[in-house]
């Protein structure tokens, strides 16, 4: 969890430097000096890589999952605690190696988080493509190993460690989400690991998996016969499921939070489970929509377009279920509830731009423009982050025995919610106007005309990131001086709220909970309170 927090602040700092360079290229920063165009690209690369791998993948799964999965299913710990530590330390090592890329000769690589060869495979294709790119590749490979070990542990724990009465269909949706994410990870990270190893071989052992005959800087390379498209297929075969690896845990968290704070059962537990299952299955069939204009067969574009359109349907159903969960509720606007509501709004906003990009014909003008940047930041970046933050505010009392400050929490929500929209909605307009991604400066006339929008985005980014300091202050203040938390401050039903705050080492102090109810029994007619704990005697006969 704390690795995730450190990583997210590093990633945010990098994005701020990018935004500064975009609109004030001549700025000289204290300690860092000026930012050159190639430095801008290293920032693009490292921001993307750190955020995707070490924040969006690590925080919701490794952070919350490790903590909350065993306690929510009534287990004393994860199935393989040693494997768990190994997974964490390998991931940590991956992060250290990744950040180490900044400090080697030539600095960090500039090939973007997608690392397309030959740019990423040739040592002399640009600054940072020597040792820096090796560090990048090794960092990701280590991360993959950590993620594979973690995934194995999650699956085993979910299947083997559930308490008596905790049937699969009585698990909180968070557990379903972590379970499905682990399956996705197990299938996806293996492919990325293989691709990374092949790339490192191309870079250092003169193999030619991804590099055809050609030149670099006018010098003929030692490669021939490789296919850059092969990397793209392997990368996106991992890369698209990765989007769901990032957001599924947040979907689980948000489903739970909406139910808790509207004091209602989730609207159709089964539909949410089946929708998430459908998304998982479809997520392995859509990778080609990243490659419509890459030069792959134009016929295959239709196949990928249809599956991509299809995946919007379970996503729309999920949105419907979340909004219907709030309908006729008794909504308590606590900080975690606000972040869950924010997630739904952002998921819709980021989602509706998907069907534009899913059509290969419309992808032609929009591909690799800021339209794409706006789309995936809203849905994969910010929406996922809102799930993570909602979860953090929700479980903080259980983890540390202290309540977080609500006023600061709400302030943090509004800065982040309004700020994220102010940053990423205008990016869609830039994309329409044809502003390409990853341009450090507007060299072409029509791009210079769009600079007022870029300036607006940078100012919004400043304010939004400043808002995150409120979160940091709240965290530190609450840890030191926060109000003491009771065992069940949110009046929630799942197993973690039946045990002491903070929980004892084996979660339940030697007792094994027995489950009689589903996870979201709120406002059950005739029940003495407006919530029925999962361990209460059975009052509802379904599930």
């Amino acid at each position, binding site marked *: 969890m704390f690795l995730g927090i450190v990583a997210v602040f590093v990633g945010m700092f990098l994005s701020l430097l990018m935004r500064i360079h975009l609109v004030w290229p001549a700025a000289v920063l204290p300690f860092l000096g000026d930012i050159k165009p190639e430095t801008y690209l290293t920032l693009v690369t490292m921001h993307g890589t750190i955020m995707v791998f070490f924040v969006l993948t690590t925080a919701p799964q490794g952070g919350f999952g490790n903590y909350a999965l065993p306690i929510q299913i009534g287990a004393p710990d994860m199935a393989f605690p040693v494997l768990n530590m190994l997974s964490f330390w390998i991931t940590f090592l991956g992060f250290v190696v990744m950040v180490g890329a900044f400090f080697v000769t030539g600095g960090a690589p500039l090939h973007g988080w997608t690392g397309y*060869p030959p*740019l990423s495979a040739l040592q002399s294709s640009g600054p940072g493509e020597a040792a820096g790119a090796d560090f990048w590749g090794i960092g990701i490979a280590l991360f993959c190993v950590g993620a594979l070990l973690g995934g194995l542990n999650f699956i085993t724990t979910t299947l083997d460690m559930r308490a008596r009465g905790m049937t699969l269909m009585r698990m909180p949706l968070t557990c379903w989400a972590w379970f499905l994410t682990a399956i996705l990870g197990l299938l996806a990270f293996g492919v990325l690991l293989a691709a990374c190893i092949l790339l490192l071989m191309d870079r250092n052992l003169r193999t030619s998996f991804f590099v055809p005959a050609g030149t670099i800087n006018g010098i003929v390379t030692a490669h021939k016969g490789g296919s850059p498209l092969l990397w793209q297929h392997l990368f996106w075969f991992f890369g698209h499921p990765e989007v769901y690896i990032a957001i599924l845990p947040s979907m689980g968290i948000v489903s739970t939070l909406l139910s808790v704070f509207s004091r209602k059962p989730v609207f*159709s537990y089964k539909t949410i489970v089946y929708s998430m299952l459908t998304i998982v299955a479809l997520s392995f069939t859509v990778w080609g929509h990243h490659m419509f204009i890459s030069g792959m067969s134009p016929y295959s574009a239709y196949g990928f377009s249809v599956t991509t359109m299809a995946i919007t349907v379970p996503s729309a159903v999920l949105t419907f279920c979340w909004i*219907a969960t709030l309908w006729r509720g008794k909504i308590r606007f606590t900080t975690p509830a606000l972040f869950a509501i924010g997630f739904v*709004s952002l998921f819709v906003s980021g989602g509706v731009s998907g069907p534009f990009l899913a*059509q*290969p014909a419309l992808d*032609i003008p929009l*591909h690799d423009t800021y339209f794409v940047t706006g789309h995936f930041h809203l849905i994969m970046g910010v929406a996922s982050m809102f799930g993570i933050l909602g979860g953090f505010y929700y479980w903080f009392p259980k983890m540390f025995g202290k309540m977080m400050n609500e006023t600061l929490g709400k302030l943090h929500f509004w800065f982040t919610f309004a700020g994220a929209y102010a940053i990423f909605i205008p990016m869609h307009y830039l994309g329409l*106007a044809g502003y390409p991604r990853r341009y450090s400066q507007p060299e072409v006339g029509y791009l210079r005309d769009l600079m007022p929008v870029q300036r607006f985005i940078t100012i919004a980014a400043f304010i939004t990131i400043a808002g995150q300091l409120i979160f940091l202050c709240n965290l530190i203040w609450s840890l030191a001086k926060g109000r003491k938390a009771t065992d069940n401050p949110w009046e929630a039903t799942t197993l973690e709220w039946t045990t002491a705050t903070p929980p004892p080492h084996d979660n339940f102090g030697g007792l094994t909970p027995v489950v009689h109810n589903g996870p979201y029994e709120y406002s059950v007619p005739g029940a003495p309170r407006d919530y029925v704990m999962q361990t209460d005697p059975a009052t509802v006969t379904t599930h």
Partner: protein
Amino acid sequence: MALVLLLFLCLLTFSSLYFFVAKVWWFQAGASSVAASLDHQFVNTGIAMGIAFLVAQLALGFILFKYRDREGKARAAYHRGESRPEVLFIVLAACLFMALDIGVDLLGGHLWAAERFRPAQAGSTLVEVNAMQFAWYFRYPGPDGRFGATKPELEDASAGGESAIGIDARDPASKDDFVSGVMYVPVDREVDAILRAHDVIHSFGVPAMRVKQDAMPGLAIHTHFTPTKLGDFDVVCSQLCGLGHYKMHGIVRVVTQDEFDKWQSAREADKQ
């Protein structure tokens, strides 16, 4: 708090839709035969997705406001979402969204096939687009209509022109090939562009023509478009290609057929 959320969601929805409807920032004026139909399809999709966006955000806002926790309010209603009418509602929501998707596809699904499933028409202007860090070189085949061979070891970027792309002078077909730094094409005639990348991946993006296609090392990728307006149009590299990516700018110069013929003859004469 509920009211603030409702107002914020209304403001967000209407302001972001306004900028789309008012086209404050919009596609560049189209300058090719496909631009109008692509833009039209974008608008169609925009209407479908705009409705989904509007309905979802406003429903969220109103429900938050209407069902906020108030003093003295009774318990929330107990809906598990699994009764028959509730499941029907879910199915209906899924069908409605599917109908939006299918509608959008029916309206514009053919556009991709119309362009990408066919080769360029006979008699189109043949141009080989050569991309390398960080420049565009446009090669024309000359009177024989054939491009001569190129070899990586003959490339000399510092010399520019023919030498930059490594044309093998020993190949007879290359004798009449000539290279230009600006892509001259005649108006209202299809251009058959063969994209080649010499070092890393680049992407031939011409926003005004609604053209974008990666140039992939090791492949010669055909793409075609028909310019319909005279003038200069920006070529912007649209795939990250290294530190000078943002500077990899080119020009498509659309001229009349007469002007093009004259320019071509002059360049061919230079080669004699």
